[in-house]
């Protein structure tokens, strides 16, 4: 409260923002440390070298050369051969982390420039994820409102049943069934593939549809719950008593007040937009970042795996930051500085 008495509203936002930013660094450091430890528990630099050199006729000298060239000849955390700060700084963890935190992702263990690859592959991922998000909102919000309004009706029960079923079924089933039905049996759209520009639309129809269907159940159920809670509030009852039109009540009173939980679910999914969907991209041969990460793990490419985990964490943290800001925007009762 002392802050409230001495600072303006803008100051609150600035202080809050800086405080949250200060959390970012240790979280990212922790994530990086965890990734590093987990990766090297499973893959030793020797394993990586052998994998990259092709397994056959590989000599210890070739492995040593490869490790030296890629910096994996350094100790992981402590360099006992050095003195002073170099004990810590001349290590695999430190040198790799410093580059990551300066957003210099460097080159993959296979020699590719990672930032360049990410720039190329983020667009196909976005080309699926963005329409999926928008369509889910367009469909799930009205459907959520409709079932909330028709609560207890056959429509409500039927749709709830469908939602629960869709939540219970694996997304892989939706993919395979969608490919079989629409592409193989009905022969309406290509099974898989991708193209540049507008040509991508016909390839995106099925994956987008499948992802929307796979995610719709959970979203509609969530929206229904939120809207039901809101509909039962007194201000809605008052509005009805005043004789307001139902559409006005829904869009003027229910929807704005239900925005808060809706925003939470939307913002939290934002990092996923960029990072892509692992299974969908794989089955539909979409050259996005999801398959980039999977390939890196399969190829034991630590440089890429670490970068993707880092970016994912960063985006997630930023997403949560945005959520908080959006809360304040959506609900005047919430003030950033007071927390």
């Amino acid at each position: 409260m002392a802050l409230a008495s001495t600072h303006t509203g803008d100051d609150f936002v600035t202080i809050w923002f800086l405080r949250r930013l200060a959390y970012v660094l240790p979280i990212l450091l922790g994530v990086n440390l965890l990734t590093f430890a987990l990766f090297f528990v499973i893959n030793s630099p020797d394993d990586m070298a052998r994998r990259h050199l092709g397994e056959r006729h590989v000599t210890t000298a070739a492995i040593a050369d490869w490790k030296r060239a890629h910096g994996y000849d350094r100790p992981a955390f402590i360099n006992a051969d050095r003195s002073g700060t170099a004990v810590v700084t001349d290590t695999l963890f430190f040198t790799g982390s410093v580059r990551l935190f300066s957003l210099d992702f460097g080159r993959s263990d296979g020699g590719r420039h990672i930032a360049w690859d990410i720039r190329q592959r983020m667009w196909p991922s976005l080309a699926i994820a963005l329409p999926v998000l928008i369509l889910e909102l367009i469909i799930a919000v009205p459907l959520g409102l409709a079932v909330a309004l028709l609560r207890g009706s056959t429509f409500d029960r039927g749709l709830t049943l469908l939602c629960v079923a869709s939540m219970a079924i694996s997304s892989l089933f939706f993919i395979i069934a969608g490919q079989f039905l629409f592409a193989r049996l009905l022969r309406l759209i290509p099974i898989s593939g991708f193209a540049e520009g507008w040509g991508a639309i016909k390839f995106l129809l099925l994956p987008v549809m499948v992802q929307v269907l796979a995610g719709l159940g959970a979203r509609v159920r969530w929206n229904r719950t939120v809207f039901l809670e809101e509909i039962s509030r007194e201000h809605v009852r008052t509005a009805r008593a005043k004789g307001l039109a139902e559409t006005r009540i829904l869009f003027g009173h229910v929807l704005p007040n239900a925005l808060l939980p809706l925003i939470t679910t939307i913002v939290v999914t934002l990092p996923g937009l960029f990072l892509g969907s692992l299974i969908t991209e794989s089955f539909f041969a979409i050259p996005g970042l999801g398959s980039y990460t999977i390939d890196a793990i399969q190829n034991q490419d630590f440089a890429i795996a670490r970068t993707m985990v880092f970016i994912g964490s960063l985006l997630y943290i930023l997403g949560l930051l945005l959520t908080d800001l959006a809360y304040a925007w959506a609900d005047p009762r919430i003030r950033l500085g007071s927390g």
Partner: protein
Amino acid sequence: MDVDVAIRALSARLARSLRLPMRLCAAWVATFLLLPVALPLAASEPWNAPYDRADRARAILYSTFQTPPRHLDPVSSYSENEAVFTGQIYEPPLQYHYLKRPYELEPLTLKEMPEVEYRNAAGRRLEEPVVGDEVASVVYRLRVRQGIRYAPHPALAKDAAGRYHYHALSAQEIAEADALADFAHTGTRELVAADYVHQIKRLAHPDLHSPILGFMERYIAGLGELAGTLRDARARSTAPLDLTKFPLEGARVVDRYTFEIVLKERYPQFLYWLAMPFFAPMPWEADRFHDQPGMAERNLTLDWHPLGTGPYRLIENNPNRRMVLVRNPEFRGEVWPSLTGGNGPLLPRIDEVHFMLEKEEIPEWNKFLQGYYDTSPIAPDGFEQAIRFNARGEPEITAEMAAKGTRLSVATRMSISYLGFNMLDPVVGGNSRRARLLRQALAIAVDFEELISIFGNGRGVPAQGPLPPGIFGHRAGKSGINAKVYRWQHGRATRRALEDARVLLADAGYPGGMDPATNRALVLHLDATSSGPDTKALFGWYRKQFAKLGLDLVVRSTDYNRFQEKMQQGDAQIFTWGWNADYPDPENFLFLLYGPNGKARYQGENAANYANPEFDALFQRMRDLPNSRERQEVIDEIVTLVRNDSPWLWGFHPQAYALEHAWMDAAEPNLMARNTLKYRQLDPALRVKLQARWNQPARGVVWFLAGCILGLGALVLWRLRQRTRAMIS
């Protein structure tokens, strides 16, 4: 009635009855009415075609790849999935004859096969026949054909004054380029002997990490020294290394079209290496171009943008989506190989090859069935749909697939998949009679015919020894069976009865599988990698096989890296392993049992750590012999010896089943050659016709679904309207 008027009337009625906005109802009605008109219009071609309409009638071969290639630089590339591309782009000096069997090398860019000269320690030429001990060096003289030219590439582009366009680019110019196509000029030049020498030096380049450097250092004179020199130079400076300034004793230019490779010792199999992309030519200009600062940051590397003299060049390298090879306009035009000497058509016969990324088998298989891939392996889920076994147990295409004109080709791979014993292990290893009898008993008990049937859908040939069919030294029929495991009955090899194994086991000191030291079933350990539910079933099957003899098999499944570690340290007891031939010579299989190649002691490829001086002596003799009766006799001795010692349960040779559509020419499976695309031919007109027939869209269903959706939407809105009214009232 006018359509516009009809839509309006219908919309107005709908709006009145549902009490909805007029515009919304009009949009619905228009969509509903226009759909049946629009759908047939859009149906002039299959809707599910994944390719550009303009490409449909062109001679483009559509194939797939599952794993993106990591290296396309011939010095680093060593994987099968990369050879699919590099084999079409690069031209090493030799190639495998497309039709001849057993596989035979022939000149590709050379005028004739390399001339081989043996020299003694004094450097004097030795006359044939040459005795192994006298040979101090071997000189291969290679004469390159004139008039072979590189595919167009910016690295070779020159201006009118003869200066290279792009060898001194500014940072700005490089920053503006995303692909090689962004460089306006391209050039070409003739292939010369120096390009081959340059490539051999590249094997030693410290930044390129050639996987065969360590191996070739043993043979090519001075290669190890050059690698050391270059490593030192790299340690001193990060500047690009100009290989033209570093001589190599074992690779030298004789004249513009002739070069020599000098080996430190006799290694007749070296010729096979000359058919691999490691020895494909690379112009120095390519290194100069790609070594410029900033190029790697744009991913403009040789690893990504290969340059060769082959029939195709890579114009699109997007391993996340597709790789596109197009005909190299500078290709000299090779003639179709003939066994009879007649003139065939000029190669290559297909204009373009599109490799599409398909990570999952199901979509790949379905697209093949729709005709959008020209060839395909058989997906496990599609096996029964595609293949049936006839009364003789031979695979045949099913009637459904045959009706579509699909063809099946079957070829036994030049590989072996086996169960190995660690010969350093005190229980199953070593040369004691006890251990040998134990291994022989297991060789009978583990029924690989059953394994092939259950886990491989019949796609394999039980191995009778280390050599697969098609390799010199392999004997087929009665004379080729492993008498320790099989009998010849009714004209075929029949596995010996389990009773024979039990007798051997008892003789080994384990009657009924009991270990006299513990008075319990002898416990053995199988080390293997686990890669999914299938492996669990496989492990269960192995346990069952050992249990037939009363033995207790414990499976120690682990991840790939831990398994490799165990193998490196010689800690495994029994293990699963395999080998794909580098080249079709018995040496490439028998060296897997050569003592000095032991994995644990010498980090070689002898995973079983088998060491038998008798074998080693025979192997050394066999290695230096040309394919001849004498060599066959030595191989027979070797095979008999290892069958008796049984360091492996010989396992099986996998078979490759491939399907092709009717529009593809009937191809001769050649599992050694990697440059076979140039021989393929297809009929695009037939493909268009059949694709259209197989992919007629279900328009009625679309119409029905659209109706359902619109109807459901209307119903919901109507119910909402009713509910609202009820609430208000």
